[in-house]
Structure formats: C-alpha cells, structure tokens
C-alpha cells in the first residue's frame, strides 16, 4: 500500500522472520512508551488516563473517508480505532501486531472444503455508531460493496471470492450470492473461494474489508463519514481544515486485542500547516503528533533537544526505482542493469536522513521479511550486502546496450526528499551517458501518473509499504503480469514487467503457501533474485519511521502492521 504522500504499507509471514524483525526494532523506548516486550501483552486499560483531546497534524487531508476506498496509511492508521472487519490485526505494540485475531467474528475460522470455505459466527450485541445492530446481511452487503465502489484492492485481494469475476466486470450489479452467504438465524457468514488462499485471513483484516451498514451508498462516500463499529466515529470532516473523531456512544469493548477502548475523548487531525510549522507546534506543546515525515533540517534538533519525544521504528517497506521494461532505453536489460550498478544507495540514504533512518537494500523483499534472502547482485566487488556503486561497469553496460545519449525522464514527487533523490538521479544518469530530465509532480498525482502507460514514464521513484505480512504483497502485487494494466491509472506493476517464467514461479509459490509457508517463503526468495537478475526495478533503501510526539503524550505503542496506535495514546 502507498503511504500518503511519502510512506505507504506492508506484510510479513513466517514467525521466524518476524522474530528477526523484532530484534531489529529500534523504537527509542522513552518513558512514555508502553513496554510489551514485543509479545503484545499489555498492562490493561488505565482509566486514570482517559479523557482529553489528542491533536494530530498533517500537511493535507488523506482524501476520501470511505474505508473501502481510501488506500493511504494516513487514514488506515485512524481507521484502526473506527472500523472493524470480521478479523483484525492485533492492536498491540511490537511483533505481535502481525497476528490476526477475531474481531467482529467470534473466532478465527477453520478453512474447510480444501481451504476454499470459511465460516464466521458474528459476535452478539454488536452495534454500529448509529445504534443499528450488526447483522450477517451487513457483512454480505459490505463484501459486495467492495466491488461496487471499485475498491483499489477489489481485483487483487478479493478476486478469489466466488462471483467476484462477475462483480469486477459489472460492479454496479455485483452479487456475491454464492461467494458470501449470510445466515441471519444462525448469525453466521460463509465465504466461498474459487481456490485456496493462504493469505485470505490477512485480507479480511485490512480496512477495505470493513463491515459497514447494508444501506451504505454504493459509491465512494467521499467526505461523508460512514457509521463505525469501533471505539470512535467521525463527528466532522473538512479536508481543508480538520478531521474530528469522537467516542462512538454505541461502542462496548468486545476484544481488547481487536478493538480496545481508546484513551482520548476526542482525536483531532488538523490540516494545512507546513511540516516545519507542524514540528514547531509539537515542540511547543500546541499539538501532539506530526503525521508527515519531519523535514531534514529539523531531524538533528529533534534527535538531540527532543530525543525523549522521538520514536524511530523500522518498516517493512522499500523505496525503489521503476525502469519501464517496455520503453527505450530500459527495454534493454543491460541498460536496466547499468542503473542498478550505478545507484549509490548510501548517498540516497543520506538524502533520506542518514543511516539511522534508512538502510540500503538490494532486494525487493525488505530485510527480515518472509522470503528475504541476503543477496546483492549489483554491488562493487560482490557480496551479499550493498557496499558501493560501480560507475565504470554502469558506463560500460550503457555503451554495450547502445542506448547511450538517449533521453530519460525521471518522474518524482515534488516534496523535498523525493526531489533531492530525483536531482541525484538526473546527475547520475547524465554521468553514465544519458540525457536525463527531471519531472517533479505533485504527490497527489505522481503515483497514479507513473502507473499509466499512456504517460510513457521511463524511470520513476516510488515506494511500497506492506499491506499485510506476506512476500506476495511485494512480488506478486508489484511485478506479476496480473498487476500490469496498460492504459490504466491502477497498474501497480509500474515497470510493466511481465515475464512468463517468473509468473509461473509466482503461481507455484502461491500454491506452495497453502501447504508449507516455509517452502513458499524459500521460493519467494528465489523469485526475488530471479527478478533482480532482469532488473526491472532498483531497490534503494528500506526506511524507518519517525514519530514525533509532544511532551504530554504517554503510552506510545507501535504496531508493525498499522504503525502508532493513535487511540491508545494518553494525553492526561
């Protein structure tokens, strides 16, 4: 998933890899941080800290409020306290946050019918914020609505539900009569898949699978909030001013793991300040948290004078360059490899804020992620980790490829960090023999612009953050033939990489995942290396997240899945 505008989302799988990731966590562990030892156990609700208004700041709003449409971390993070699915990621600090737990469903389902059928029993007494009860009919309608509103992940996460093909073809008349079956009397919902999907439980735990009232509009709700089931609901939303959340009067905690009670009475996210002003406001105690990445020139000050208010956490994500495999000069494999050899990852890490905020990478799967294998095919002198670029080799490959002197457009977002990296790339490409032009675009449009093949983007800088913890969320989503849709704004395979051999391996890994996750992860690692040999992308670094809090805030908890648990912060 994409984080708006800089960061995005993630995924993971095998517990061994997750444990390794936990070891790498570097949250600064300040006095206000909840200590859970990474196992997700918490010390229980502390009523003395209940109340107050938590003030969050973001440069701009995150777009539509519709949880089945919005695909930004900015609001996914807030949805955790507002919406619920049948399942949820455990809302705790640390590694345990990757664990899927029952939410509106009473228990985790056991797959039957060869892994193709899941039966859920709804909890009793659940209500929407309007006071209406949550029924199986709402669940059925919510799954159909995913297709009716053309949710960004309708075709990738939920296309395995029986009847989904027809819904994708004709969203307006979507019916999942055989795919999602509700039994009002029994209080159950049965989901039938066309084929086993070992990652389906993850897909039910993300906001796009939120359960909404059955009479919700079949179009994007936009700025009009939809009723919630969680601890908070929206009281007002003006994308130019603020988003205000208040307690849901009909909420009663049913599971502290899935939907815990929150602490603040009100959560306000205000829009419109520059990031510099946001940081100053938090330093002065006028606000409690900054959503946007802090400006480079404030990092030093934050890390020294306000070190106790700063939390740094590694993310399962990567920043990368896409090389259009269908357009010159990067329809030439040697030309693509030249860029991989030339890029100085250490330099880009510096532009991002230094080695304490990012780590150079050579692979698509981030370090400590399921399937990740330490390997680095494009580092000077060889080795399994990146050490230095090889400009001479890059120049040689450019000459060999016969592409020297060709024009290359570099499309980046126009914020400070992205533009700096763009300028570096322009300089580098010129150095190795191309005529490079920089095209900075507004963050609001760059991500869709670079996906559409009609825009003939040759090289773009972008990033990917996991949706859920599985290797397929990187490789299958970003680089499979199924993700390549020429002429569409939703062609997340931005490099246009479609290799039948690699695609066959991806299908094998997905099938393998139904029986042995460990073997599947090993296969994903091999696929990662096979793709990197063809060089459709240039992984540059895996970022860390900086959370900057005001002095008064306590109980900082970092979910690896959805990041800081906003409603668990204390302001009293």
């Amino acid at each position, binding site marked *: 998933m994409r984080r708006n505008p800089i960061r995005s989302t993630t995924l993971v799988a095998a517990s061994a890899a997750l444990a390794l990731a936990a070891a790498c966590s570097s949250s600064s562990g300040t006095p206000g941080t909840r200590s859970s030892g990474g196992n997700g156990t918490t010390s229980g609700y502390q009523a003395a800290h209940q109340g107050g208004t938590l003030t969050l700041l973001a440069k701009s709003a995150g777009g539509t409020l519709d949880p089945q449409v919005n695909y930004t971390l900015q609001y996914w993070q807030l949805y955790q306290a507002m919406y619920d699915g049948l399942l949820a990621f455990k809302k705790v600090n640390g590694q345990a946050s990757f664990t899927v737990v029952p939410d509106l469903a009473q228990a985790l389902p056991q797959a039957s019918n060869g892994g193709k059928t899941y039966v859920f029993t709804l909890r009793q007494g659940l209500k929407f914020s309007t006071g209406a009860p949550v029924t199986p009919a709402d669940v059925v309608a919510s799954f159909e609505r995913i297709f009716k509103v053309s949710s960004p992940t309708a075709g990738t996460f939920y296309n395995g539900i029986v009847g989904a093909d027809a819904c994708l073809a004709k969203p307006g008349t979507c019916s999942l009569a055989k795919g999602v079956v509700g039994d009002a009397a029994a209080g159950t919902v049965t989901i039938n898949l066309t084929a086993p999907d070992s990652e389906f439980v993850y897909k039910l735990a993300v906001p796009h699978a939120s359960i909404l009232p059955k009479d919700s509009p079949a179009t994007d709700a936009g700025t009009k909030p939809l009723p919630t089931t969680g601890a908070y609901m929206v009281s007002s939303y003006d994308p130019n001013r603020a988003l205000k959340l208040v307690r849901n009067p009909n909420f009663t905690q049913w599971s502290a793991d899935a939907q815990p009670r929150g602490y603040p009475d009100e959560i306000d996210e205000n829009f419109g300040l520059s990031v510099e002003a946001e940081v100053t406001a938090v330093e002065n105690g006028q606000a409690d948290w900054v959503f946007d990445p802090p*400006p480079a020139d404030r990092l030093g000050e*934050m*890390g020294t004078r306000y070190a106790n208010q700063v939390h740094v956490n590694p993310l399962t994500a990567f920043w990368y360059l896409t090389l259009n495999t269908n357009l010159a000069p990067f329809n030439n494999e040697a030309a693509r490899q030249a860029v991989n050899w030339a890029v100085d990852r250490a330099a880009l890490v510096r532009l991002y804020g230094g080695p304490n905020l990012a780590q150079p990478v050579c692979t698509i799967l981030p370090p400590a992620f399921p399937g990740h294998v330490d390997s680095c095919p494009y580092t000077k002198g060889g080795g399994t980790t990146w050490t230095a670029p090889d400009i001479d080799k890059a120049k040689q490959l450019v000459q060999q490829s016969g592409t020297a002197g060709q024009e290359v457009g570099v499309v980046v977002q126009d914020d400070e960090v992205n533009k700096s990296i763009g300028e570096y790339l322009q300089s580098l490409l010129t150095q190795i023999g191309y005529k490079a032009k920089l095209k900075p675009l507004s963050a609001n449009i760059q991500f869709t612009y670079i996906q559409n093949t009609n825009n003939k983007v040759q090289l773009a800088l972008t990033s990917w953050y996991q949706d859920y913890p599985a290797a397929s969320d990187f490789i299958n989503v970003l680089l499979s033939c199924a993700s390549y849709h020429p002429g569409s704004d939703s062609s997340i395979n931005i490099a246009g990489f479609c290799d039948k051999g690699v695609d066959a391996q991806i299908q094998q890994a997905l099938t393998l995942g139904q029986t042995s996750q460990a073997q599947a992860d090993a296969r994903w690692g091999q696929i990662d290396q096979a793709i990197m040999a063809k060089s459709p992308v240039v992984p540059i670094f895996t970022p860390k997240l900086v959370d900057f809090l005001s002095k008064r805030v306590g109980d900082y908890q970092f979910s690896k899945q959805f990041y800081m648990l906003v409603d668990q912060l204390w302001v009293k």
Partner: protein
Amino acid sequence: MSTTTVPAGPWRVSLAALRHNRAAMGAAVLFVLVVLACVAAPLYAHQVAHTDPFRSTISGTTTVDGRTVPLLAQSSTGLGLGVTPIGPTWDPGHYFLGADNQGRDVMARLLYGGRNSLLIGVSSALLCCLLATLIGVAAGYAGGILDSVLSRLLDVVWAVPVYLLAICLSVVLLTSGLHLGPVTVEAGSLWVPVVIIAVVYVPYVARPLRGQVIALRHREFIQAAIGLGASDLRIMRRDVLPNVLPTVIVFLPLMTALNMLTESALSFLSVGVQPPDASWGTIINDGLGLLYTRPAVTIAPGLAIALTAGALNVFGDGVREALDPAARLRGAAAVRVRAGGTP
C-alpha cells in the same frame, strides 16, 4: 575668424547628466561587477574550486583546515538523526559558501545561477520592451479598431495577476514547450521563462507608450509629416519611435530588475528554471530545506538578488532623470525649495 558653438545633442546632455549622478554610477558599477563575477563562473568552478556545480557529490569529501571531511555529515549527537551539508569554509578553493544537500559547491552554483538569472532578466526585459514598443506604437498611432483590439488584449493580460498568469503559462509550457509556427521552444529550455516573463509584463510597458504615442500623434511635426505624404510606417519609424525611445530606455533597467525578481519567484516555485540548470531562485528553493542548519544556501542568492535588483533600480532612476528633462527640472526645483530659493 569666427567661432560657432554647436549645442550638445539631447543624448549627450543626458549621458553627461547620468555621469554626474553618483548613485546611478555606483549602482552601475555594482551591477557590472555582479555581471563580471557571473560571467567568470566557469573560471571559478574549474580553476579555483575544482568542482562541477551540476553534479551530485553526496558521498564526496573536501578538505577543511588540512582535514578531510564529508560534504554531508551524519549527526553524531542524540539519536543521530539527520545529515547536514558542510557550511561555509571561507576558503575559495574548498566550498567557500558550503555545500547544498546534493554536495554541490554553493558559491559555484551562485555564480552559474547568476548567469541564468541575469540572462533571463535582461533577455525578457528586451523582449518585453520590444513587444511593448511595437504594440504601443501601432495602437497609439493607428487608433480605431486596431487600437481597440490591442488595448483590450492588453487589458485582458493586465486583468490577471502577474504571478498567477506566469505560473499558469509555466506549467503548460514546461510540460509541452512552445510551438508557434517556425518558433519552437523546448520544454525545460531557459527560453521558456524568458518568453513567459516578457509576455506577462508587456501591458505594463505598452500602455504608457501607447498614451505617449497618442499625444505625439497630434503634434505639429507629425501632422506636417502626414501632410507631406510620408507613409505611416516611415512616420512611426522616423518621427514617433525616436520620441518614445527614451521612455523605453528608462523602462529597460527597471524591467530587468523586475523580471529578475519574477524569474526568482517562478524558479523558487519550481516553475521557472529547471534542474540541472540553476538560477538564484532555484538555489533559494534548494536551500529551503536547510534553512535551520545551513542558512547560507538561501541567504547568499537572496543577497545577490537584492543587490542586483537594487542596483538596477537605482541605475534605472538615474537614467530616467537623465533622459527626462522635466524630471531634471522638477528635481532642481525641489532642491531650490529645500534650499529656501524660489521654485
């Protein structure tokens, strides 16, 4: 033997008056020094600083007080967050004004940026004055429908705020370039801001010129030329144009200063000069993210803009006083009044 005294021509009188204006001469010298420094940019970059101001050297090093230091230093205090470019060393051979976030020499970029800012400022002022003169003379002399059409066109341009119009034009031209018949300006070319800035300021020069031409049109010498059967083109070229030329000359330095400021503003907003080219506006933009840690990256081009625009304005005022006898008389009268004499 008889001697006759030939009176000095108006141009010579004006030049003499300008020469005696110390403020204007000082400003002119300052402007010339800035121009010379910018012209010498390659000399400074290659022979003194030994650097390429357009190449990113993020992982590079330099020498300060005999020690090798990184151009971008990782913070070593507290949580160790952030990277800061090297600040001014005041050593011309080693990052005199420090480095920007790409590890590029700010001093070298300042000089190269000045070349572009000056080039755009002067070129757009010339183009603007040329277009404005053509339009102003044609509209004022011809009158009638041509005057109405041209005047309304000027009104339309004038009605839109300058920066809004310039930004809109820049966004379009920076994407697709300019293709007007045989004239083609590539997207990203320096000529894009030149054309845009020239066009948006045409009404500001053309309208006073048009008014002046309308006044001239009814003067006796023009009527006499018409009566003698001179063609309109000849009258405009030989009789009208020389009379409005002093006004155009007065406008030139003032428009150059204004256009440099506009260019800087557009480049600061990323719709002017495009990377890897630099201008003072783009350097200020580059320095924005370093305002708290390396303010020199922003202050240096800011000072350069202020000095150059100030010098051009003072010089422009001097030229106006020199070329406009009425202004001279008004100035002399004011001096006499202040001295207690008769106006």
